[in-house]
Structures are given as structure tokens and as C-alpha cells.
């Protein structure tokens, strides 16, 4: 899919103030997108405003809440802290790409569903993306303490951590035969 609309709707009065547009190629949830964007556009805004992928949320806008977490080449990243142009050529997975194309939920999604691992839902995508990265990372021990440490960048104001933790343990058991 090729998207060639301008990076923002702003028509700057002063042409000198308009930064040069960068062409970037992002593979998102298996689909390749070519975007022409300002160099200071963060990945989160590119996903939400350019591509209509609104599952990743803007919670704090500076990398402290984790609601914007996506996978970049398999690693969890705060997409609000990463420039879209830094992800040029990268393989990105958002919450919209977690399920199979036929709609079958990813084991992490299924476990979150079974354990009611959300209340308001606003942090849920970020929680699931971090959990997915952790469960794919053999260097992270599958103990309660390590999972808690690894998940500590994702805050949930509703305090649903107990159910989130139970969901991650269930997903781990299904994905990795964990305890």
C-alpha cells in the first residue's frame, strides 16, 4: 500500500519553517507502507494519524506510561519516543496485527480475555505488546519477579495488575510450556 498524502495538514506560511519530508518504508503487521513524513514525526503519530492504527494509545507522550508500546523487529518500543524515520525498513507489529488474519486471537490476547486483564482498556494494547515481547525473549526468566520487572514500564491506573500478571502466566504456559 502506498500513501503519498502530505505529512501534516498544516500549510506553513513560512516555507523556511517547513522541514524536508523523508521517505520511509515501514512494514506494519505484514503490510509495507511508504510514507513521506517530516523527520520529527514520532512513530506513534505516524501509526495513529497517517495509517489509522489507533490501537496504540497516547497516555503520557513521553515514554513513561507504556500505552504506546509496539514491537519493532520483535522488541518492545515506546512508539511515542521513536521517530518514524528511525523505524525505516523495520518490521513493526501493533495490537492490530497480534491476531491471525483469520481473527484467531494471539495466546496473549486470549489470556487477557480469559483473565479480565483490563478495566478501562486504555493501557491494554501496550500491556499485551510488552507481554508478547517478554514471552518471545528467552533472556527473560519466567519468574514472577522477572516478569514484574520486565513489565514495569507499562502502568495501569485501574490497578488491574493482578489479572494482567495471571494472564501473562497463562499465555506463557501456552506459548512456552512455562509454569
Amino acid at each position, binding site marked *: 500500500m502506498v500513501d503519498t498524502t502530505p505529512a501534516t495538514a498544516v500549510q506553513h506560511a513560512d516555507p523556511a519553517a517547513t522541514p524536508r519530508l523523508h521517505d520511509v518504508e515501514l512494514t506494519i503487521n505484514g503490510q509495507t507502507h511508504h510514507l513521506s513524513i517530516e523527520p520529527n514525526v514520532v512513530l506513534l503519530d505516524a501509526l495513529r494519524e497517517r495509517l489509522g492504527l489507533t490501537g496504540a494509545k497516547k497516555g503520557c507522550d513521553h515514554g*513513561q506510561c507504556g500505552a504506546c508500546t509496539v514491537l519493532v523487529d520483535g522488541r518492545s518500543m515506546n512508539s511515542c519516543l521513536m521517530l518514524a524515520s528511525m523505524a525505516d525498513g523495520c518490521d513493526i507489529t501493533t495490537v492490530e496485527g497480534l491476531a491471525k488474519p483469520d481473527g484467531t486471537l494471539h495466546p496473549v490476547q486470549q489470556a487477557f480475555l480469559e483473565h479480565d486483564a*483490563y478495566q478501562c482498556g486504555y493501557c491494554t494494547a501496550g500491556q499485551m505488546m510488552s507481554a508478547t515481547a517478554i514471552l518471545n525473549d528467552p533472556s527473560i526468566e519466567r519468574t514472577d519477579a522477572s516478569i514484574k520487572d520486565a513489565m514495569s514500564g507499562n502502568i495501569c491506573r485501574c490497578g488491574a495488575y493482578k*489479572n494482567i500478571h495471571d494472564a501473562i502466566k497463562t499465555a506463557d504456559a501456552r506459548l512456552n510450556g512455562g509454569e
Partner: protein
Amino acid sequence: MRKLIPAPAPLPSDAATRHSAPHDSAVAHVTGRAIYVDDLPAHARMGYLAVGLSPHAHARLDGLTLDAVRQSPGVIDVITAADIPGRNEVGAVYPGDPLLAERELRYAGQPVFAVVATDLVSARRAVDKAVIHATPLPASLDAVEAIAQGLTVLPVHHHERATPLDRGSAMKNNTQTREAPGEAPAASHCVSGTLSIGGQEHFYLEGQIAQAEALDDDGIRILTSSQHPSEVQKLVAEVLDRPLHSIVAEVRRMGGGFGGKESQAAALGAMAALAAARNHCTVRFRLPRRDDMLMTGKRHPFETHYEVTTDDRGILRDTTISLIGNCGHSPDLSEGVVDRAMFHADNAYYLGNARVTGHRAMTHTASNTAFRGFGGPQGMMPIEAAMDDIARRLGLDPLDVRKRNLYTDQKDETHYGQRLDQHLIGPLIDQLEKQSDYRHRRQAITAFNQENPIIKRGLALTPVKFGISFTAQHLNQAGALLAIYTDGSVLINHGGTEMGQGLHTKVCQIVARVFDIPLGRVRISATRTDKVPNTSPTAASSGADLNGMAARDAALTLRARLLDLAAEQYRQPRDSLTFSDGQLIADGWSMPWEALIQAAYLKRVPLSATGFYSTPTIHYDKTTGKGHPFFYYAYGAAVSEVEIDTLTGEHRLRRVDILHDVGDSLNPAIDRGQIEGGFIQGAGWLTTEELKWDDKGTLLTTGPATYKIPAYSDTPPVFNVALLEGHPCSQATIYRSKAVGEPPFMLALSVWSALRDALSSLTNYTTSPALDVPATPERILLAVEAIKSASTPAACPEGADHG
């Protein structure tokens, strides 16, 4: 319609699982499809709004220079107070909250002007180009000083009770005594203290946001993240000077509310609506986190003082509690917040002679507002502090002092005159004491503390008794609108809003239960003021109590119509007809739900109905401070075990056991989630969440980097949560359930009390160290240092136990 849709096959029965149904948006949440306001697709001509905020806590506003703002790229419109066609006022109850400041700046962070631009970045860049001309004035920044100077937003209020044990009155009025007759007044012990309680930022993960659309008929439609869409509608109408019926406010869901979107969301709705009306377009207004934290109110900080006398057993004789709520610059909801603090000054204890005073201090800060518990948590803290102090003074376990002071059927009247009708708290505590193995752990912890010089552990069990109802009587009403379509599918709409608490799920369950049909047949739609009008906020834990009853009322109306039809049409005795598992059945006769609905349509039975509910029996007389303000009470108790490091002040929550009363639960899974989440949020307020202002009154903690809400790793490793079984609500609530939104928040007081217990171990439990809230590592370390410098090898000096 001329031709009916083919009646679908009945759905499989879900009778076994419906009770713990998952959240109505469960699949949408895990797939990322759940839409919040900021996720809506942009309109072709959409304006984005940003506001310029006051840099001064208190100043005379001399003027604005906005030329550079107007000329900034992308700017469509610049709006000041002079541009408001109607009232420049968005106060929830009393005036004092202008939409945009005029003449006076009353807090740092107050909105002064607004910019509409073609995109958000341009709007925010333009805001920075404004010059605000202001002359700083002396600012009130200290609540205690404010009261000394008579600076209040509303008058003082008292609750007062002199029991027969009161000095001088015991002789003449002996019949009222509920003490054992003939009990001689024993020696008296007096403890007193002051306790400073911090505020709390809501930090809803979805910040404040509203989107307003100018319609073709001079109407305005507002999509808002608000707990109170009817108030958004009303305030928009007043700001625009238009009738209410031209304004529609709609809420599908919020990414968290916690009280912070009860009154505070209205300003955003009104600002977006004003911009949309002026520019005949759609305007989105999302506050960046920093502006959100600067501009909107928080939980009220409180300054409290308590003085109690007890007998030798630690039983309260006289209780005097003074509560100063720091209301910020305007009344907002502070009347109710401070009232509720006063109503909960007893927590679960009979206070004896009681005098409770509530002050509402005015400071030049953001106007503090509703936050889960609504003053209740702050109100309960002084008496819980006193319980610990009494125990130390008398050498008792704090749990025994608490148990001796609980309400009983002999001592069942609160200091404001309401009688308790369900004595659950004593048995509940006994059960939790056993389940949590309190006594053995108490011994083990005492032994641990004797052996470990650096790490100290603490244990505490604290109760909660929380009154359910809005303290403003007229708000205790709700409406619902129910439609059944010709395929048997049901659509329910009600006045409550969904912020993650599972209200919509519970309401769908209630409707499914009336007809005994699978939950899959019932769907809920967004809360809209043009579907159910004149609604109350989703607040005071009342969402399911009120709206569930209204939905049930609508369903019962339709149920009666369907029974009438079946009795007449199929000649079945009406009394023999029941709805059962997707069918209407009678002796030897049955009819699937879907076929029944089609028959009803063809027989021209109306298949939609409204429902209504108003809470009975509640009243309160503000002039006497007496009444029956609550329909019932919800109870609970928690045991927390903590560990402190006396060299750093760091602390950890090791184990939590909770037993909580929700009556007959509407949905145990949702209720457990509310209890766990409420506890965690309460623990955050009491330990890590610290709001800091500079000496000029500007908030310094404006994001998660400096304001610490509980993280994943703050969850206790052992976290046992149980619902109290077998005690349906004594009042006729919806299926005898009880409200669950706020009460569990106060279970976290056990964490703070356990921290005090750990500190007390440093003097072998002979003193009761003061510990202001939040009990951050810094405060704990200071408390440790104070104990170390005060204590001599011998016993602690008399009086040190008040801290």
C-alpha cells in the same frame, strides 16, 4: 415493516456463565478495536484546540497580546472570555469556574485563551506566542493559613453528638445510654495528633478530551470523555446561550475516570463546543498530560487534627476531629467532598461524644474535585491514626482497640444520627483475622523485628464502612431506555457511563436476567443525552445501583406486556407463565423468546419502554447535621504486611488479605477487579503519589516522570481477595447487591497503618510515630531518624506518642 426478519434460532444457554460475564468491550479491548475519542477518524475540516494557561497563582489580568498567535501558521481562531456568547462559567454547583479567565487569574494552570488550528502542533505552537499581561497578587497557598484568615470557598459545617456519657448530661438522660448500665467511668486516657494528608492526581490513562461537531440545524454534538454527559450538555448550553435540546453529549467509554471526569470534563466540552459553533466545523480538544495535570483539579489534600479520650480498655468516650479540606480556588464539588469526609470521620467506630468539623479552605490552586472516595478516605484517616495511638498508649494490639470500638447492635448510631441496620463489620473482621492468620503473623513479625536491626516489618488490619448514595439527594435518580427488535435482540441504554468499572456489563446482565435470555441477545449503546435525559453523574459508586434499577424497571414494563400478550393470545394462565432460559414457559407449553417477540410485534404490542428509579428513604438536614444520608453501607477489611528499610526509608508491600462486602454480587469477576484496583490506587495515594508545588504555587509534578502512580511491580506478591458470602444487602438494592466502586479504595489505609506499625517496632511498640501521607521513602526515613534522635535507651518520654 411489511415482512419480518426470519426469527433466528435461539442462542445456546449461558445460564451457567452469565453471572461472571466478561466486560462488554472485552474483545474490543484485546484487539485494539475499542474506540476512545482521540481514536475517531478526523473530519475533513477539523480544528484542533489548545489553551493558554495562567503562569500565576493569583494575579490581576491586565490584558492579552495575541497578534502573534493569530498570525501563527495554521491558526483558524483565537478565543478569549469576551467571545463567549452565554455565561462564562462551568462550575458544577456554585459559580467560580470561568471557562476562560477574565480580570483575575486564580491559579497557575487556569485557562486564559484558546487557539483553534488546522492541526494540534500548530495550535500548541501558537499558544506559546501569546503575551499575558498580569500583575501578581498575594496568593493563598496554605490551607491552614487560609482558614486562619477566613479564606474559604464555602462555610464551615459541624456534626455534634453529646451522648449521656457527656459531662453533666449523664444523670438527666440515662435512658439513652447504650453502654452497659452501671458501668463506672474509669480512668481516662487522652491522645491527640495532627495528620497532613496529600492530594492525588487522577492520572486517568486517557487524558481529558472532547470533540464537538456543529450540526446543520444549529445543534452541537459533543463526544466527550465525561462521567456526567448531562452536565456537559447543560454547561455547553449555558456557555453558548442555546436551549438544552439543541445540545447532545455522548460517551461511549472513558479510558479511566476515577472522579476526575465528573465535573472537570465539562470545561473541555464547552471549549470545543464554543470553537465548533464559532467556526461551523468539528473541533477536537485533547489536553496534553502536562496541561491536564496543571489545569484540572485533584483529590483534596486535608489538614486534620484529632483528640480522643478513652477508658482503660481503649474504648472511645469523646472524639473531636477537625478536617480542613484544601478546595483550591473555587467550590466545584467541595461541599459534598468535605461533607463526605465528615460522614466518614467515624469509619466503622462508635465515636462516643463526637464533634466533627469540616472546613473548606480556599487556596490559589486548581479547584480540587471528586476522586474515588470523595473525601471519605481523608475523613477516615484521623480516627484510624487515633486507633493506633490508643493501642500504643495502652500497650494493646491495634486490632484489639479497633475491634472494641466497632459499631455493634448496642452502639449503632453514627455521629450524624443514622442507625446501622446490618452489623457485618464485626463478623467480617473476625473472619478475615482467621483467614489471614493475623495473630500468628503478629507474633512472627514481632520476633522478626527483634532479630533484624535494619529491616522492620509491620502488620495492620483496618476496616471500611462506606455510605452509599449521593449526599446531594436529588442526584439519586436514574433513567433507562429499552428496545426489543423483531429478531429478539435487545438494546439497552441508560444514564450511566462506562469508564472500565464494568457498569455496562452489569446492566446488560440485569436485563438478561429479567427475561432470562442469553447475554448475547442484549447489547448496550453509548450513553447519550438524547436517549436518556437529565441523568446524574456516574459517581458515588452508584452507577449499577441507580442505572441497574432503572434498566430493570424498563425491562419489567416490557415483561408485563409480553406476559399479558401470551396470556391472552395463547390462553395460558398468566400466573403460570415464566421466562426461563430463552423461552416463555407454562405448564406443558413453551415458546422461544424470538417467536414471542415476533408475535408481540404482529399484535402491535409496544416493544420499547423507559425505566426510572429514585433511591428511597434518604434525607439529611444540613442545619442540624443529622439525618439518614445513605441508603446503606458497604463494608470491608484488609490486612497488610509491609517491610521498611530503616537506612533508606524504602518500603515494600509483602502481603495483602482482603475480605469485602458486595452483598449478592452482580458479577464477582468485575467486583474482584474493582476491589483489587481500588486497593492498589489507594496504596498509591498513601505511599508513592506526591504532588509538589513550588513556592509560587505552580505544580511541579506534571507527568509520570515525577508523579509516581503504582507500577506493575508494586503489586503485593501475595494478594488474597475474597468476597463476603451469604450477606445480601439489607435494603432492596438491585438484586441485593452493593456498590463496589469506591469502598475498596479505603482498604489501603491498612498499608499506612502497617507502615506505622513497622516504625513503632523501633521503640518496641511503645510509641505511635506520626506519618503524614503520602508515606514516601523520604517521610519514612525522616520518621525513623526522628525516632532515633528522640529515643533514649530507656522508655520513651510521656507525650511522644502523639508525634
